């Protein structure tokens, strides 16, 4: 589950139309959200509030055993009003729980109008940990419509203190350019002077003069190729990896992602396949192989979402569609759920409006166009459902052949509180045990 500050950062990105999924850093997010989720450790409780649409603050307590209680204070400020911010009472769970990413890259570049030009939002964030008095801070400044600068820094107690220097500071700089066709990042990390470059290129996206927010038949599937290059100047450490990502939709409208990542220096290859089989479930598998050591590993995982038993339960019998529409739809199989919001929002943009073109279509019986149109409608239908579903909890689990561990995590909402708990079960034949266990409670107003 996202921390409060991470959630705010995402709100900021969405609000300022910054697409995370178009960065190389997030190229494996769909599978990582299921196969590499982070189980909370110990007990953590945080209370947050927004004093204004620009100011947010949070306080948290944490106990990780050893009889110590740690805390932190965090402040968040932005120059742009976060209109999409929601408190923990009415936040949709799919906004705070990492899950399958619906990659929907805009078809043209953002450009600010004169009005917006002056805004160019800022983000400032700082957190102090107690009692260690360590600090972390972040600043994001949008330079142009497609470029932003990010600055991160930490200041901690030096683990090997000297009389003159008992604090240690690390800084990192990110210069990010994010266009619809490609994205680029230049990174510098002050510790050991690590330089990094990251690229991502999207194939097959043709420029479309009209900006339409929904998916159309031109970009049902996206093929992206990215790479990262690292070099530590102080200790001469090179690093390299490259990834191919293909996201698409099945004929029934299920989104799926396939990635092929490799590290040519180390000879390792990793492929993942994630599919959202219906609104409630995602399945994911990952296969790793190393060409030098012949080591391999298979990891599988899934997440299951649940609706509550309150009045928000979606109607299982969809209201009958108009006959013409029904004819255009492929039967909706297992996800025949139509939510009230979706009913209102239902617009099938590509549907021929006028009688002439309708007639023409019927007359020509161009099967290709018809199926494409049908599938676009199905996909839109499906993605809308995912976006609007009133989920109450999600269960994630994964296991791998090599580690013999099963990781379980449950995230959900209980009386305005966001709960997240999980454990790691070690199924070692010699001595099975529970490795990690934790509970995290969040409340925000």
């Amino acid at each position, binding site marked *: 589950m996202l921390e409060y500050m991470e959630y705010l950062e995402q709100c900021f990105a969405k609000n300022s139309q910054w697409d995370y999924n178009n960065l190389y*850093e997030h190229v494996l997010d769909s599978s990582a959200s299921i196969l590499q989720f982070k189980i909370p450790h110990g007990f953590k409780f945080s209370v947050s509030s927004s004093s204004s649409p620009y100011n947010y603050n949070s306080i948290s307590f944490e106990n990780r055993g050893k009889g110590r209680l740690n805390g932190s204070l965090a402040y968040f400020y932005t120059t742009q009003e976060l209109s999409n911010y929601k408190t923990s009472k009415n936040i949709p769970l799919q906004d705070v729980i990492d899950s399958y990413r619906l990659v929907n890259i805009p078809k043209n570049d953002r450009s600010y109008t004169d009005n917006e030009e002056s805004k160019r939002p800022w983000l400032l964030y700082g957190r102090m940990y107690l009692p260690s008095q360590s600090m972390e801070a972040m600043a994001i400044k949008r330079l142009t419509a497609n470029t932003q600068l990010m600055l991160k820094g930490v200041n901690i107690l030096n683990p090997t203190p000297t009389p003159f220097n008992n604090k240690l500071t690390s800084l990192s700089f990110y210069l990010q350019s994010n266009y619809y066709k490609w994205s680029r990042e230049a990174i510098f990390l002050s*510790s*050991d002077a690590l330089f990094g470059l990251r690229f991502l290129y999207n194939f097959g996206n043709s420029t479309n003069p009209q900006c339409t927010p929904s998916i159309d038949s031109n970009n049902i599937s996206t093929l992206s190729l990215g790479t990262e290059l690292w070099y530590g100047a102080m200790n001469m*450490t090179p690093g390299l990896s490259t*990834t191919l990502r293909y996201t698409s939709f099945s004929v029934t409208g299920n989104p799926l992602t396939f990635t092929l990542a490799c590290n040519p220096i180390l000879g390792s290859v*990793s492929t993942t396949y994630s599919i959202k089989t219906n609104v409630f479930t995602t399945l994911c598998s990952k296969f790793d192989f190393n060409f*030098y050591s012949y080591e391999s590993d298979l990891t599988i995982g899934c997440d299951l979402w649940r609706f509550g038993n309150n009045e928000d339960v979606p109607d299982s019998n969809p209201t009958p569609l108009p006959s013409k529409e029904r004819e255009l739809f492929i039967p909706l199989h297992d996800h025949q759920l139509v939510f009230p919001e979706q009913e209102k929002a239902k617009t099938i943009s590509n549907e021929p409006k006028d009688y002439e073109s309708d007639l023409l279509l019927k007359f020509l019986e161009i099967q290709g166009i018809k199926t494409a149109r049908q599938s676009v409608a199905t996909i839109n239908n499906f993605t809308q459902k995912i976006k609007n579903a009133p989920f109450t909890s999600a269960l994630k689990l994964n296991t791998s052949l090599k580690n013999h561990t099963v990781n379980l995590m449950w995230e959900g909402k209980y009386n305005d509180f966001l709960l997240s708990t999980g454990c790691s079960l070690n199924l070692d034949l010699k001595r099975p045990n529970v490795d990690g266990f934790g509970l995290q409670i969040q409340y925000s107003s």
Partner: protein
Amino acid sequence: MSFNINWDSIQKESLSAWTAELLNDALNSGKRPNVLCTDIQIEDLSFGTIPPDFEILEIGDLSSDSFRGIFKFNYDGDASITLRTKVQANPLKIYEDNLLDQFEDDQRELGEFIKPRFVMATDILEIPLNLKLSQIKLSSIIIIVFSRSKGLTLVFKNDPLESISVSSTFDRIKPLARFLQNKIETQISELFKEFLPSVLYKFSQKYTTENFADFHRELLHTQHPERNTENRVTLQDIDPEAPLIISPGSLMRLTTLSSSRQTLTLGGKISADKLNPDIITKNYFNELIPKTYNKFQLKADKVADIAQNIHSIKNLQSRIFWKNSKNNDKPHRRVVCLGDKDKSKEKCKQVESESLYRRSVYSQGSIFNDGASDVSTLTESTEVEQEAPNTEFPKLQAVDLKPDMSVETIIQNSSQEKHRKVKPIDDIGLIGRRKERLRELLKYDVVDFSMPPMPGSPTKFFNTNIFHDSNHINNGNLPIRVAPPPYQC
């Protein structure tokens, strides 16, 4: 003053195993550096056949609890050590781990915050590494200071490492091999200068503060000497008949003698260790004493002497009888002879003349009487066979004597046989006075009777059983013939 250190004894399997374990612990203590993926394991450790030269230059202080000396140390031998581990081949992964190590456990979040998110660049690649160090050339002047309270301090005056040969799995990759060679040479000289003295110091402190006996025990526990007792003389060899019969004085003397042979060798057969089972100590002596004097155990090989014992019991019995009898009564014993009239009578006489108390009546040769016979007839016969007179009696079987049989088992065996053939006195059908009289008469009879144990039955019956058996054992001079029962004696 000189020391004689036997280098071959160092080459022992147990010692190298012990040293390997010690080194394993020392190498893997503390936090493992990020470049290593697994613990370092010692594959092979050999001290070589060539001993080092050890020259005493000066001994400054020598007393019971402190020592200070300067030595010259030269080594050019064939000792070797093979280590095995797995190394991380991805430098960026090592970088990432080092970066995260700056943050303590409760500040992990800060580490995650500042660290850039690597996609596949920090993948793990473990490479197994076998490293063999051999042809070690050492030469140095060592100062050793030992004090019982402070432990052992060892100082190398100069860099002891002259040369070392490093061979590893990366030998074919020249730059990597050269890198390893350099790295290890510096590491080894570091080890001699700093690591070894500190480990020795810690190790010595552990044992100077602890009980020395514990140290010995631990050492003994790690070694597994083959206990070869072929050429050893044990107490059993001296007197196999009675290994425990040895006078306390002799035992004491033996103990003193054996303890005088003991040396300070660690863990050997004659080590002066309390728990050494090969050595007679006072503990052993104390343990022996109660065993020797407080118990009577009938040995298996004593079973053959039972006959003699029974004979003496018999004598005792008869002596008591004669002492108590006032009017020279003969004991009421009946001998039933079997077989032909003449022969049996002859035999009877022969038997009677031999010894009164050796006679016995066998149940098989009982006299048959009619159910309505008078009492006198009944009293004369000890057992009543209700079968037809012509019945063939089962042959008397000698009880198999085995050396490990106890007296009880023999008796049991015989009495079991009897039970099948003998009618108990209660079943004969007598009542009242007659029965009592019969009992009275039988009291004096040393005959087999085979009564089932009754409450309050005289213990003599038990003795009679033995008596019967004794005849069996001695039946070499008392032949028994089984024949159809005669109607009169």
